């Protein structure tokens, strides 16, 4: 049933009573039973909890109370976001069995909006990866082709939405972890302005880059979800105290006369011809809608990967220090404290996480800090300035989200550098802290989805929704075969 609806449509049905939340819950549970074995999108599901939430929504309606904006809408949650009393492991063995004593702020907001939280989604361990292959639970799979990656790190969230085990999902994006999987699965994914959404309760990978954002089957759904989860939070000192715009309203705004910048640096070696073709075709359609397409320069783009991997790993090496076996999660009993730390972290962390902790520890070490971390911070400033300069001339920046469509699982698993390059188009916006979104704009010859990335100035998420809606009006992907 739910696969026939968008988020807005389903919420309206539940609000009006045409469909009960309990019916939705049963349908969701049935779909999870049917598809999750194949796509491994959800790593923990508690049907009783889904039904209990649904019953509460139905009772609320029965009492005559108005229902929230996400009434009865099934939303899947990345496993890095804390849900009270429910397994939250960030895709890591070191947190197996861990259930936090508190809800993340975004979770509290979803509950208040009467959403149905359907379970926790698969992810690269601690959000470190671009293919979901670094999950302790095995990789999630792409609903368009289950031999291919759904992307990462929020691959499970993307796969859950693409296969309609949920109509929306929360992911987290540090260097592209929402946008790249959205692109690879034909879904809409939004990375808000840094500080737009509270990070309280998001298990940190790289604190200065992490942002929680929505996935949805359509642009309007993603706008509604962002409207629910955005806003200032007294628990997060980096959250911005600025009003939230009407994102859903922005979906129907006109884009006549608006300027779209196209960074030439993004159309370079490594970009697949199918992706380039689809993106350029989408841009041409925007032009026919009345937009002005302008080439722009983001000259420091080529330093983004190196900059990102210094800053993100530095912060991660510190953020992951708390997983020490003392208070929660895995503990490998050992004769001494030092050995316990070593054995616990050795057994609990996967290869990529260890690689990044080592890298991050190195770049912060005495004698290396200036050469790596400090330089990376300076480069980050230059990358941010690239965007500031560009936005003096254009309203949004459009580019491919990822250089290729979904690659085969295992294809890049042993080549971390090749894997890191798959985030090449998404990293700069993360480093600059500006909002960005991926919207489907076509498919390659094999039918795999292609995403268009839109980037806007800080706090101008509304523009993203306006442009993405236009892209969507020209091209909306069908459901993957086999999950209808």
């Amino acid at each position, binding site marked *: 049933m739910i696969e026939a609806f968008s988020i807005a449509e389903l919420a309206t049905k539940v609000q009006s009573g045409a469909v009960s939340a309990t019916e939705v819950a049963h349908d969701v549970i049935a779909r999870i039973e049917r598809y999750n074995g194949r796509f491994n999108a959800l790593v923990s599901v508690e049907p009783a909890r889904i039904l209990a939430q649904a019953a509460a929504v139905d009772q609320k309606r029965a009492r005559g109370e108005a229902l929230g904006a996400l009434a009865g809408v099934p939303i899947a949650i990345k496993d*890095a*976001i*804390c849900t009270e009393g429910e397994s*939250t492991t*960030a895709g890591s063995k070191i*947190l197996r069995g*861990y259930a*936090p*004593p*508190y809800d*993340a702020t975004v979770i509290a907001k979803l509950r208040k909006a009467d959403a149905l939280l359907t379970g926790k989604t698969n992810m690269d361990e601690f959000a470190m990866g671009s293919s979901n292959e670094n999950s302790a639970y095995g990789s999630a799979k792409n609903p368009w082709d289950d031999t291919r990656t759904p992307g990462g790190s929020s691959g499970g969230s993307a796969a859950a939405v693409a296969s309609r085990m949920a109509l929306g999902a929360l992911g987290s994006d540090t260097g592209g972890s929402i946008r790249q999987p959205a692109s690879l699965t034909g879904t809409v994914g939004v990375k808000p302005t840094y500080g737009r959404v509270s*990070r*309280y*309760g*998001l*298990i*940190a990978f*790289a*604190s*200065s880059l992490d942002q929680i954002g929505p996935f949805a089957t359509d642009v309007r759904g993603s706008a509604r979800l962002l409207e629910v989860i955005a806003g200032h939070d*007294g*628990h*997060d*000192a*980096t959250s911005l105290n600025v009003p939230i715009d009407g994102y859903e309203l922005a979906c129907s705004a006109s884009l006549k006369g608006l300027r779209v910048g196209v960074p030439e640096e993004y159309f370079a070696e490594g970009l697949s011809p199918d992706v380039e073709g689809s993106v350029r075709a989408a841009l041409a359609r925007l032009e026919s809608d009345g937009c002005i397409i302008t080439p722009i320069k983001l000259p420091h783009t080529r330093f983004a990967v190196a900059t990102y991997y210094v800053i993100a790993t*530095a*912060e991660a*090496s*510190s953020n*992951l*220090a*708390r*997983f*020490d076996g*003392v*208070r*929660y999660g895995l503990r490998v009993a050992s004769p001494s*404290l030092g050995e316990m*730390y070593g054995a616990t972290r050795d057994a609990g962390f996967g290869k990529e996480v260890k690689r990044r902790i080592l890298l991050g*520890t190195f770049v*912060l*070490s*005495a004698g290396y*800090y200036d050469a790596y*971390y400090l330089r990376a911070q300076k480069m980050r400033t230059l990358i941010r300035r690239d965007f500031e300069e560009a936005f003096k001339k254009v309203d949004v920046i459009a580019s491919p989200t990822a250089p290729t469509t979904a690659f085969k699982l295992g294809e890049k698993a042993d080549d971390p550098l090749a894997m890191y390059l798959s985030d090449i188009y998404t990293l700069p916006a993360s480093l600059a802290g500006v909002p960005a979104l991926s919207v489907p704009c076509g498919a390659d010859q094999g039918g795999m989805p292609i995403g268009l990335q839109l980037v806007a100035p800080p706090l101008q998420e509304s523009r993203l929704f306006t442009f993405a809606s236009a892209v969507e009006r020209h091209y909306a992907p069908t459901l993957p075969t086999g999950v209808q």
Partner: protein
Amino acid sequence: MSRYEAVIGLEVHAQLLTRTKAFCSCATAFGAPPNTQVCPTCLGLPGALPVLNGKAVELAVRTALALDCAVRQESIFARKNYFYPDLPKGYQISQYDRPFSEHGHLDITVEKKGAEAVTKRAGITRVHMEEDAGKNTHDRGDVSVVDLNRSGTALVEIVGDPDLRSADEAVEYLKTVREILVFIGVNDGNLEEGSFRCDANVSIRPVGESKFGTRTELKNINSFKFVREAINYEIARQESVLECGGKIIQETRGWDEKASKTFSMRSKEEAQDYRYFPEPDLPPLVITEAFIETVRSTMPELPVAKRARFVRDHKQTPYAAQVLTTHPEVARFYEEAGALHGDFVKVGNFVQGEVLRDVRTSGLSATFPVTASQVAELLKLVDAGDISGKQAKEVYGKMVGTSKTPREWVSELGMQQVTDAAAINTVCQRVVDANPKQAEALKTGKVAMFGYFVGQVMKETKGSANPQMVNDALKRILGV
């Protein structure tokens, strides 16, 4: 005379007296059952974030201003990374290369044998904010336990320049810092409970040498006595190492109270690389000029200024001013009673002579045996001649812990002085008449006999007659 001179710099860690912790709203009260004043943030749970306590900033700025530091408009928090079970996040939020205040100084009084005390100015390198760790306990055999109630409590670290030259100077410096912090209400000065802690960097160099020698860091010494002993021990140890041709190793040393020795904890090679970097969870700390001015204008009076004022305005001796400022509450009590009574010297003497004996202080609070208004009223009764000074002490003893006024006690004890001249005259006449032999003796020159009559009168009146009036009446009757 030693060939060497000691060079000492001190680091003080002082818990700020905020009701809640530095980065979460957990209570900071001392002595709660283990792990009951904790939340996701101070437990370091995954996903939890720090939010700075504004009150901690206010108290930190107050500290910086009291130490004449310059306050930086924009400072940043940094993470100090190391693993330890009492450090739940695996890093401590502190400040590193951009602390909120720097370049202050502190004047201490240095006593020299056989010479007048002199004032010495010691530099303050910096004052920065940071959070405290929890507490590990190792008294349960095979297991150690961790209490995180203290985790995340707001601290200031006060780093002093290496300007001190002896253990005595170091102790004086610490006492002065502690007194200032207590008087400005930012710290309770409790060394035993660890809310005021000290590390000492000690090195020696040949007298006349301007370069510093290799230093050792003495960690966590929890009394002024031990600070003096540890530094003196360390100076002597370093001298004997150098005298024997050895070299001082840069290391961290602890103080063994039982053996009265310092011992090596870890050398520089084993020293941690803390990998400081800016704390990404907290925006830069912006302290505006207006905020600084607000803090400055509400700054409690510093002890030095208070003492000077007591000497200048209240005509106290420097010694009395010192005694009356042993604790901010004592000073407050004295001033309150003085203002009610009007004569600060009399009140000061009574507070020093009687009240202080029974004052109990605990941290910033103090319990007094009587109220300031009781003291003022009591001394007014003496002034009015209603009771004698000696009786005042007796009334004070009775009044301790009660809410009765001095006047009520005086009448209850039947102490009301008889100041009725006629009544006193009658008693005196009677006593003189009853003792003709003694009166005769007095008249023939036995002056000491006058005291006998006074004693008899006081005995008859049970001590309630005004002594001056008794004197006058007897002199008149006896014609002396």
